[in-house]
């Protein structure tokens, strides 16, 4: 039983309910790993607004989940990303993986969250009391994504 579930939506993400759909569902899976990203309090931040590129974003997430599924022999891979406006503390993204063993599930989740930050077309805008600005890409995010792709390339070699 393997499957990939990709969702990009304006609806609020219910992380616990998504996790519960994965636990206990597959008797061959020993482990379910998840990462939930939420809007963090930052000086002046009133809300975040996420924009995406319909169809292209979903396809990019699908490709990331497929690579993770192959690389770590996942049974289930889930990427659920919210778009539109959200407030501090609200869930922005939920990533999860089920696998027979814990290390595979945890690595796959790390890979998917790192890759989606730099390889899926989302743009993040910060709204403050005094106006709005677009979030700049961070070198640390590129390095995190490169860590995985370098590792995969060297394994293939």
């Amino acid at each position, binding site marked *: 039983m393997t499957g990939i579930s990709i969702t990009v939506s304006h609806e609020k993400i219910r992380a616990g309910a998504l996790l519960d759909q994965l636990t206990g569902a597959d008797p061959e899976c020993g482990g379910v790993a998840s990462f939930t*990203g939420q809007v963090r309090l930052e000086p002046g931040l009133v809300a975040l607004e*996420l*924009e*995406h*590129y319909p*169809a*292209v974003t979903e*396809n*990019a997430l699908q490709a990331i989940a497929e690579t993770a599924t192959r690389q770590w022999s996942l049974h289930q891979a889930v990427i659920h*990303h919210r778009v539109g406006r959200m407030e501090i503390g609200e869930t*922005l*993204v939920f990533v999860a993986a089920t696998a027979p063993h814990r290390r595979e599930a945890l690595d796959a989740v790390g890979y998917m*969250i790192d890759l*989606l*930050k*730099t*390889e*899926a*077309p*989302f*743009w*993040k*805008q910060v709204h403050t009391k005094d106006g709005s600005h*677009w*979030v*700049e*890409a961070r070198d640390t*995010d590129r390095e995190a994504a490169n860590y995985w792709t370098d590792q995969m390339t060297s394994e293939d070699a």
Partner: protein
Amino acid sequence: MPITIRYMAALRDRMGKSEDVMELPSGITDSDALTAHLQDLDPAAHALAHPSIRLILNDAIAPRPSPIRSGDTLAFCPPFTGG
């Protein structure tokens, strides 16, 4: 057939518009040539030439430069900042 050019996120603010629809000028066959042409029309378009800018061509992420032809939709994208 026209070509549709989209400016995403911060590039939309920079260009002051989300989209241009124009006839593809003769002799322009790839995204780099188109970028140069757009800079001739509007100096603000030099932002499109920045090495960090990525392309989405007809609903797929595409390398730079990519060949283009009439009927295409080409989106200029700032670096992605999701998650």
